[in-house]
């Protein structure tokens, strides 16, 4: 098992770039994120810090979706559901006075895991378009459940105070929250990289390329895909937990299908299957949305066409613009 770790390049590499070269872009990316707060000191630090924290959290959610889409060819259009589960775990528990971060996180992970297992078990019986639609339906199902939770704000959502760690309000500090999000992002990136490079990840990519052949050589795609689905759901729940803490607010809008669409856009923009591309995509997405919405109220009229143009013309995504262009798209 000492093959060169090809960190989830889902598109088959034609030439294997050196390990260092391959790691350069993600390394630079994480270095920039680690040093960002220091640089932000010189500018409007509070605003930039919050924006970057948000970017990293959405990047985390998008990265987990990349495990499904980029590595497993499971186009889930309901991934925001898990983001919502994580966020509502914070909102609902804290409204009952349970504000310990670990309890909330554990609840988020368990509920997301169970929800992913149940919905994944049904969804993965279908394929192609049907899979896209059934995941969308489960996401909408959760959306309507949250809008009808009148006790927890219903449509309007619910404000909350940030989680405490063993009774200490350390997350109140924006800088701490930034580094917590950074640590979560880095940790999940490394974990997902390991997952993708493992035998499990290879099987998953094999299924993406040719499910029939994988079956023929003795793998049951269903179990591998379901496991990946649960892993991705739980990571997205972590992102939801962080998102609720960042905005000190949860609402059904976190779960809407538009948010799921945003997440897909992020990974396509960033480059599918590379994991860190999701972070680049999330950054490009949030910064573009932020920039355009400051520029005009009708920013969607620019944003929509940008999306279309990206789909039509930029097939490899941002990650392919890096030093490892040897990984040519198909």
């Amino acid at each position, binding site marked *: 098992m000492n093959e060169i770790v090809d960190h989830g390049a889902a598109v088959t590499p034609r030439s294997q770039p050196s390990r260092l070269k391959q790691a350069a872009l993600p390394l630079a990316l994480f270095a920039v994120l680690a040093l960002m707060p220091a640089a932000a000191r010189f500018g409007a630090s509070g605003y930039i810090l919050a924006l970057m924290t948000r970017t990293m959290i959405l990047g985390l959610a998008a990265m987990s979706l990349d495990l499904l889409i980029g590595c497993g060819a499971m186009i889930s259009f309901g991934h925001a559901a898990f983001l919502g589960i994580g966020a509502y775990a914070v909102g609902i528990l804290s409204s009952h006075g349970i504000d310990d971060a670990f309890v909330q996180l554990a609840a988020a992970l368990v509920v997301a895991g169970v929800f992913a297992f149940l919905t994944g078990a049904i969804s993965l019986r279908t394929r192609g378009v*049907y899979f896209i639609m059934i995941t969308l339906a489960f996401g909408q199902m959760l959306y309507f*459940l949250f809008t009808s939770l009148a006790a927890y704000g219903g449509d309007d959502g619910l404000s909350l105070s940030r989680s405490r760690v063993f009774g200490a309000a350390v997350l109140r500090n924006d800088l701490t929250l930034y580094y917590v999000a950074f640590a979560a992002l880095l940790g999940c990136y490394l974990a997902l990289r390991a997952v993708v490079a493992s035998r499990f990840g290879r099987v998953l990519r094999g299924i993406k390329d040719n499910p029939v052949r994988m079956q023929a050589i003795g793998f049951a795609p269903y179990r591998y895909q379901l496991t990946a689905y649960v892993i991705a759901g739980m990571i997205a729940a972590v992102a939801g937990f962080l998102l609720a803490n960042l905005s000190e607010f949860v609402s059904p809008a976190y779960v809407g299908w538009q948010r799921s669409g945003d997440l897909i856009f992020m990974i396509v923009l960033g480059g599918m299957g590379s994991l860190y591309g999701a972070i680049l995509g999330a950054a490009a997405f949030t910064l573009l949305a932020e920039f355009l919405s400051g520029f005009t109220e009708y920013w969607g009229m620019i944003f929509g066409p940008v999306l279309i143009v990206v789909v*039509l013309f930029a097939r490899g995504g941002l990650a392919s613009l890096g030093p490892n262009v040897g990984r040519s798209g198909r």
Partner: protein
Amino acid sequence: MTLTLALVQVLNGVQFGLILFLIAAGLTIVFGVMDFINLAHGVQYMVGAYLMAAFTVFTGSFWLGLLLSLPSALVIGLVLELLVFRHLYARDHLAHVLATFGVIIFLNQAVKLVFGPAPLSVPVPQAFAGAVTLAPGLLYPVYRLVIIAAGLLVGLLLYATVNHTRLGMLVRAGASNAPMVSALGVNISLLFTIVFGVGAMLAGFAGAMVAPILSVEPGMGDNVLILAFVVIVIGGIGSVRGAFIAAVLIGLTDTLGRFFAPTLLRAVLDPAAASQTGRAVAPMLIYILMAAVLFFRPTGLFPARR
């Protein structure tokens, strides 16, 4: 009293289902023949409603408004096809989803820019104003009956076209094997354009028809789009008959579920909890129905492609 109320709900459910059918019919044919996921189908419905709102104000007549809205919806659909969708047919589903998602974002904002963010309303035409007594104590708005009639009529027309014309034969053949149809010498891109135009116009027609009973606002197509997808997935992609049955099924489930869920739950829960849970469960019913159908029949009830 309860019986009449229930009957009104059934009629509402059928009416809602038929509107869903008008939208889903175009979606399922486009999907079936072209293997193209058009998320922008919902905004075409919205555009239809806005066109209707604009043209009825402009001409002062419901009929003239409808007459002008339909070709305009068609033209807008064809322009979108020419500019965006045509370049996506050869791409994968992910590209379809994303690019048409971009179209949604654009058009939702565009109508807000042109018509303003406030909801518009369209008056119910004079001829169909008021209500009619269907049975003793059962009053029902005439216009909603007109919607039911229009939905059934379009359903019949589509049925006749799909099953008894040359074009319909090509559509059915395309839904079961598009490359083969192309290989047999049919101008498939012309067929695609026709199918797409008809789909866009049907969605626009649905939007125009509901404009007098719903408020016309940005984003009105988004929820309907999801429901239309639920319909075509339950019905089986590419099947107009499946779409019809699934649409009425969904319309009834949704309407009756919202009406009866709190009442039924009252039998096992106390009233406050029953109405709370009922309101939570009702909107989820159709998704549960869809999950159940797909669990037992992963390709829907009437799959066109075997």
